[in-house]
């Protein structure tokens, strides 16, 4: 079984110190409790919070000291929450590294108080990892019964009226994806091995599904129309605005660098050049106004990737020369990111450095241009 809830940490003081990354409902337990206490708005049946409180939890609320946890468009969060309160599931699609999983985790924590009912999709995912399986020792000894039945996240979510997260749904085989069909429309799972009322598990109020799919591996195009129709689609985009992304990268990198023992904070101008480069490559550099598809690198140019490159830049500058990372380090580290999969991307990066960067102004952009030879031929 790939149910993740074995890792669930409980309250932060009883041993959660050992957990690398406690789930959202543990990390933000205080905020959730405060929101629940002040929540006067109507709640959809089966929800732990009202829609408005859930929204405040995710997009933040300066007045009550709730931090902003998701930096995308607030209207996306609105649509996602309203969708979950209706009878359709929510499908979050987007490039890797756009915080889809984070968003689904936050929503599940806010709506159900539990983000751990998760199915991780993959080529080997089978139906019993979604609905239910059996404890074979008990099954042989006692025959089918509720004791020998091992409920998987969907069945538990339905029985308990909670949100179930289905990560990377498009990586599952199509027939496995389609096993969700009846579950989403009839809202019931039949367990033919059991007799009596236990043979039918009806979804309680509060049950719904948040699926995520990334557009790189296997897009949503192959998904059956019948299943598509049971979901509302929301595309999650990279952070739209430079300043927000820059601030996020700066904050993350500063923490990471400190943890790696690098003393000087990252140079903001260098970070700006780095984030700017990522943004332009992501949008399909050299393609003013067009849709950019053909010029986009195949490597993932996400904010998360920018953070890791910036981290590498800082480490390199400090441990090699004892100074903050420079634009030349950016070029050297970018080669590693962009050329991860393909020489095509390396060529794209070189084209960008040679042809687009000289049009930019500023000393760091110039330094970036001057360091272009650091890309291996």
């Amino acid at each position: 079984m790939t149910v993740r809830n074995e890792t669930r940490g409980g309250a932060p003081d009883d041993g959660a110190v050992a957990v690398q990354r406690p789930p959202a409902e543990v990390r933000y337990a205080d905020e959730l409790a405060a929101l629940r206490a002040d929540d006067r708005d109507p709640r959809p049946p089966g929800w732990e919070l009202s829609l408005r409180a859930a929204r405040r939890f995710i997009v933040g609320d300066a007045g009550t000291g709730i931090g902003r946890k998701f930096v995308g468009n607030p209207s996306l969060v609105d649509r996602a929450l309203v969708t979950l309160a209706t009878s359709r599931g929510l499908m979050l699609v987007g490039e890797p590294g756009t915080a889809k999983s984070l968003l689904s985790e936050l929503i599940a924590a806010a709506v159900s108080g539990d983000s751990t009912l998760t199915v991780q999709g993959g080529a080997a995912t089978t139906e019993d990892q979604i609905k239910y399986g059996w404890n074979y020792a008990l099954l042989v000894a006692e025959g089918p019964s509720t004791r020998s039945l091992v409920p998987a996240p969907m069945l538990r979510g339905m029985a308990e009226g909670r949100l179930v997260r289905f990560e990377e749904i498009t990586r599952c085989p199509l027939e496995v994806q389609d096993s969700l069909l009846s579950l989403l429309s009839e809202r019931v799972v039949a367990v033919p091995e059991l007799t009596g009322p236990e043979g039918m598990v009806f979804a309680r109020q509060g049950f719904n599904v948040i699926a995520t799919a990334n557009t790189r591996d296997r897009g949503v195009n192959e998904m059956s129309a019948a299943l598509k129709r049971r979901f509302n689609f929301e595309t999650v985009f990279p952070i739209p605005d430079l300043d927000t992304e820059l601030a996020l990268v700066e904050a993350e990198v500063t923490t990471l660098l400190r943890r790696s023992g690098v003393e000087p904070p990252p140079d903001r101008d260098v970070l700006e050049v780095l984030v700017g480069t990522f943004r332009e490559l992501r949008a399909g550099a050299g393609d003013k106004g067009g849709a950019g598809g053909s010029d986009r690198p195949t490597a993932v140019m996400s904010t998360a990737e920018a953070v890791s490159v910036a981290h590498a830049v800082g480490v390199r500058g400090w441990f090699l020369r004892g100074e903050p990372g420079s634009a030349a380090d950016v070029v050297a580290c970018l080669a590693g990111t962009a050329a991860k999969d393909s020489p095509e991307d390396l060529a794209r990066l070189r084209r960008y450095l040679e042809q687009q960067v000289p049009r930019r102004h500023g000393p760091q952009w110039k330094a970036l241009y001057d360091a272009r030879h650091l890309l291996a031929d």
Partner: protein
Amino acid sequence: MPAVFLGVRHHSPACARLVERTVEELRPAQVLIEGPAEMNGRLDELLLGHELPVAVFSHYRDERRAATSWAPLCDYSPEWVALRAGRAAGAEVRFIDLPAWHPAFAERTNRYADAEIRYAEATERLCRHFAVDSSDALWDRLFEVEPDDGLADRLDAYFALVRGDAAADAGDRARETYMAAWVRAAVGRAGNRPVLVVTGGFHQPALRALTEPGGEGCAQDECWEQDEDGWPRVPAPPKGAMAGSFLVPYSFRQLDAFAGYQSGMPSPGYYQRVWDAGPEAAADGLLRVVVERLRARRFPVSTADLIAARSLAQGLTALRGHPSPARIDVLDGLAGALITDDLDRPLPWTTRGALTTGVHPVVVEMLAACGGDRTGRLHPGTPAPPLVHDVAARLAALVLDGGTGTSYRLDLTDATDLERSRVLHRLRVLGIPGHGRTAGPEHGADPVFTERWEAQAAPGREAALVEAGAYGATLAEAAAVALAERARAAAAEADDLAKTLFDAVVCGMDGFSEQLLGELSSQVGGLRTAGPLGGILATALGLWRHDRVFGMARGPLLASVVEGATARLLWLLEGARGPAGVDRPRLRAVVAVRDTVVHAPELLPVTRATVAGIARRINDDPEAPLDLRGAAFGLHRALAEEPDAFGDPADAVRAVARAGADALGDWLAGLFALARDEVTGVVGEDGPGGGSLIDVLDGLIRALPDDEFLAGLPALRQAFAFFPPRERERIAGRLLERRGVRGSSRSLLRTTADPLLIAGARTLEESVSRLLARYDLGATP
């Protein structure tokens, strides 16, 4: 009695309602409106009974700059309502802003563009506070869907906040002191009766401060002269400049922020319905129109989808705390329910600005439904816009005003005839009927220097002229705006773009309009195939270097196209992939790049060495198509300072030949297209290394087995087709010489029979000899 200030957002139904109510309650003696003061003598023209939207169109031209701007008015514009209701209430109504030509408006083409957008910091903070995506959503949330009580106070608070920490620029400052002068004059004249001032909310706090009794008044240099009645004088345009304002018809499409620049609110069609019938009805209407449009386009919208869209919209309305559905609630609901794909671009209403390509078709239909298709119409009694007179005067001056059936033969090398041709072409691009061209140059490289035009019957000509009047005051300006619009619409279509560019050339648009310039070069930068782009570059470069006919040589229009096209081509070429074979348009594009680097390096942001480096990498790239690699080899030789450092062509040929004869043919085609002189030296007598390539090739081809030779023959023939006959003859001569044969090299090139027939005969002969060999019938020696 102090003035009552209403700060409004242009094109806002809520503000329009507020203005209407305030006029009714206040019964003011004076209504002052942000609008071009030079129109004050002609306000009656505005109230003739037009079908809105219409715009006050202002134009200006002196030796240094030309500017046009619009002040659009629709049914729900607060300015329009103030004008209409103020008159109806018996008030004196006046426009109090500076004329559009005043330097305060430099760079602005729409008087009623949202000023607060320029000072985004405060709106951004508010957006974050209210957790909305964009200032439009914020505005709807705070004002349009809220009940009208307390609206004026909320507006005051909002605009005070927006204005708060923003330092207004010099233009704003000039306009505000001028408007304040009007307010002071009006208050003085109105005595005890109220004065109502309707201006953009951004200016309202400043105006209030400037007109406070005992306030700062005006500094010495900011005082405006007064006329004999005590009103501020309307500044006159500088001597020698031409300026004026006229009414022109306008359309919702022009008004829509998704369709163009600097517009006020997006989705005028939707807000018209809000104004006419209220937000509930507008939301219903929008849903209906979108579904009708989608179904008409055969996009399946099921009843279940409709239910989902409706319930989503209602849920969003409730979640966001809107008393009635706002525009984005309906749009978000529709998008959530109808789109079952991943999107390429974020939903347009989550940001601000014009639509880009790659927007989901459902979203495009939704926005079109929001935009509406209403077009204004002027009352027949309205004085004609200046364009009408300009056209008439020009046609008369150039003796082009003959009746139907007159034909004109224009010699483009003659200055007057060229001017005539330009005028007729400009009329053509504006879509004004009356003249048709029956002959003339078709494209930039067409060596035709005469044109024939015929005057035709032209129903609807007057209406078309008035409509085109919205584009500009003079024919040239109007044509430039129309062409820029066309260039924008041509997005990523090379043919359309080339046509637009050629039209800009024949219209003589050089240096006329920054907007056209920017539009053309940025659209060129968006093309995706090298071939057509190369065609555009070659033509533009040729005209830039040599044009004497259209007068475009060395001009900025072509320079910007050349620059944009070269940068884009380099980008595309280095990433090019594709099947084997020779892509001739693409090879010509490489030639065009070479010519640009050699003949117009001053136009390019990249250096010659960079381009040579790019060429070198393309040639080294094993994934690149072979013809392109050959061309890159040639490009490198043509541009690099030390061409030989890159390797001997003969070695390169040997390396390519290992991949087979047809690969060699493709590669050679590319090479010969770019650098046949440099490489073969057949033109100059045996240069350094010249001729040796031919020798190497001869050796390679002779060594080919027959069937491989036949397989590679078409590609090889194609490669040598890049040589003109005389050079081919020299090559043939050289081959004869190598074999020590005497004879006419020409006869080698001109076979007596069709080469295909000869090849067929050879194949037949070979299969016969194979058959004979198989049965051991002793092949003939």
